């Protein structure tokens, strides 16, 4: 399905660029975006290797088990199909924790481990399981205690109170997440 989305966006952009007379700029954009994708992938490789190691340390030191137990009431509601000893559950827990503390680049490797585990538990089917959908939806909404990047931008542009947005951000992201989760719970029975 995502392939259809990309194809539609690509075709629409190319047609639109001809209408607006920017056709020749398109090929250079394709080149620059390809090198950007390679750049991002190489960075991602380093990050994944680093944080996979950190996850092993957290697991062996018993930290993962503690956080897992703490978040269990929440993960039980969100992922009812996962058993307590599921490997995916510990990766999901670490992913949620990393997101909460604003460690975006740590959240991605944990999330990738989680999604691969979920795929294994789903028998490598080409149809996403309920747990996979829920997990991705949670990650598309941002759960962050301190929006440091935005606060930094605000102070750069001369805000008197860069941090005044924190509570509104909590309320907004919590509401949006709730809407995402509830709609997922309703729709997973119908699709």
């Amino acid at each position, binding site marked *: 399905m995502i392939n259809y989305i990309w194809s539609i966006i690509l075709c629409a952009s190319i047609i639109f660029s001809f209408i607006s007379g920017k056709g020749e700029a398109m090929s250079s954009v394709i080149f620059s975006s390809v090198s950007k994708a390679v750049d991002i992938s190489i960075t991602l490789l380093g990050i994944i290797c680093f944080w996979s190691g950190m996850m092993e340390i957290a697991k062996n030191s018993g930290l993962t088990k503690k956080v897992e137990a703490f978040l269990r009431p929440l993960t039980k509601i969100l992922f009812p199909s996962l058993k307590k000893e599921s490997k995916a559950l510990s990766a999901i827990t670490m992913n949620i924790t990393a997101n909460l503390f604003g460690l975006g680049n740590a959240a991605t490797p944990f999330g990738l481990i989680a999604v691969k585990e979920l795929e294994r538990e789903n028998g490598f089917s080409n149809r996403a399981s309920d747990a*996979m959908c829920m997990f991705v939806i949670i990650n598309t909404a941002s759960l962050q205690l301190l929006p440091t990047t935005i606060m930094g931008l605000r102070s750069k542009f001369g805000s008197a109170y860069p941090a005044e947005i924190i509570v509104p951000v909590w309320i907004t992201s919590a509401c949006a997440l709730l809407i995402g989760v509830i709609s997922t719970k309703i729709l997973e029975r119908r699709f």
Partner: protein
Amino acid sequence: MGLKTVLSVFPSLLALICAVELMNESGLCNYLSDVLSPLFSFLNVPKELSPLAIIRPISGSGSTAVLQSLMEKYSPDSFIGRCASIISASTETTFYTIAVYFGATKVKYMRHTVFCALLADISCVVIGCLVCRLFFC
């Protein structure tokens, strides 16, 4: 394991970045935000924010650029500046997240994921403006 994962994610990452850059460069993004601005004004969202609302789920760097230009133009402590900050901080780059996570798997049929994620994004824009009014007006 790291290398394998990156290799499996790469095709969808490439498609995503190409599509996003082309969309920005061709002016399709600006066109979309013009077309959709009546919808946003119906939802009580100022029309200055519609470019941000469109690009936020698609491109992280693109939305940072839009946010910066909004802050420069209206100051971060204006209503627009505050709304823009709240919206940017409250949601993620939805399509990037979906592409990376599902790209790592063999999943073809994603069921309700895209719909629910976009629903959450739209409600984030609407609720963000609402909360901003409650807090600062």
